């Protein structure tokens, strides 16, 4: 049993159902709430919220703080458990995963800017945030096509999102409005090779 993860996600039956849900959706995607165990999640969040970030800003593209990925999360993402987990959900072999940590607070965002667009791929991200995050704050990750409504992943603490990105889809992080006050969120994402 993988102690870092919510026990529910260690059961093969649950993973098989998750895989079925992923495959049946258009585009293929899935969202796991309360992904990590409470202890693991709280320890990671404590590190992420306290870490001194590096301001990354290009007005016409993005504004956020870059963080180092905590070693616990780096180890988890490369672990046999998580690779197997992804392989079951995606139904294919995976060679490696990459990770990057970004912290967002009031006035931060990522715009659709063409550089995010890297063709068909599978994205995933873990999300951690302060308690009491409301939809009106913004900060959500969305995938947008030229036509149609964007696909929005809500800001939920201790969640994992996986999406099979289609070739004309572009990603953004919605500007965080002043309603958020001093609250922050951290997105630790990457893609699967």
């Amino acid at each position, binding site marked *: 049993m993988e102690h870092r993860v919510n026990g529910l996600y260690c059961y093969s039956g649950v993973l098989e159902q998750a895989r079925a849900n992923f495959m049946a959706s258009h585009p293929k995607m899935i969202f796991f709430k309360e992904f990590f165990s409470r202890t693991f999640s709280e320890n990671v969040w404590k590190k992420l919220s306290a870490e001194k970030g590096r301001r990354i800003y290009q*007005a016409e593209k993005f504004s956020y703080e870059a963080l180092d990925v905590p070693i616990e999360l780096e180890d988890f993402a490369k672990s046999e458990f998580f690779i197997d987990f992804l392989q079951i959900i995606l139904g294919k072999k995976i060679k490696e995963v990459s990770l990057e940590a970004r912290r967002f607070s009031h006035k931060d965002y990522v715009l659709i800017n063409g550089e995010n667009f890297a063709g068909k791929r599978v994205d995933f991200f873990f999300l951690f945030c302060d308690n009491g995050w409301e939809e009106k704050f913004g900060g959500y990750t969305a995938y*947008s096509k030229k036509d149609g409504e964007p696909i929005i992943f809500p800001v939920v603490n201790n969640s994992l999102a996986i999406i099979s990105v289609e070739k004309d889809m572009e990603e953004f992080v919605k500007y965080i409005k002043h309603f958020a006050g001093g609250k922050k969120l951290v997105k630790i994402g990457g893609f699967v090779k």
Partner: protein
Amino acid sequence: MDILQNWIDERNLNSDLIEELRGKFEMAEPFEHLHIENFLKEEKANLLREALLEENFVYKENDLFSLSQTADLSECKNEVLKSFYLFLSSKEFSEFMKRITGIDVVSGALDVAGSLYRSGDYLLCHDDLIDDRRIAYLFYLCVNFEEKDGGRFLLFSEKGGKPWKAVKAQIPKWNSFMLFRVSRKSFHAVEENFSDKERLAIGGWLH
């Protein structure tokens, strides 16, 4: 009465002032722009505000913005707004714009819509450079905005063809007229509205 005199405060039609404005426009940093206070006749500005507030504003949002807009005012049925549209479309107005900017625009070739930024609304950095837009303009019809309220018009400096940082912030003052040349340098944004006040304006582009 001349269509310009019908709408614009007569002080802004003075030849000496127009020449001064042209100079200010050409020398403005970080890119060519003007902000003219008390631009319209006060009673006209009041009528415009009342008329605009009767219009249907549709909320729109994407990665770049959250705000509400009316449809293009060319189709508007309100008599005040129709009259204002005719004023903006007139040969006289395009000639006036040429005098203060030096930019040729085609009379009648314009976009006009009302915009409304409520609390939390914003427009992130971009340059407006699409199609044959030549001049971007805004008539501010909002009341009592101060620096702490947000909603300021931000002008960005440019470095290597990219926006560098916001170097000027214009508070949206009642009855002021903001305009700028659309170019590769015209990076701008609307700061988030931090207040409960409504940032109301009519604006668009001259082509």
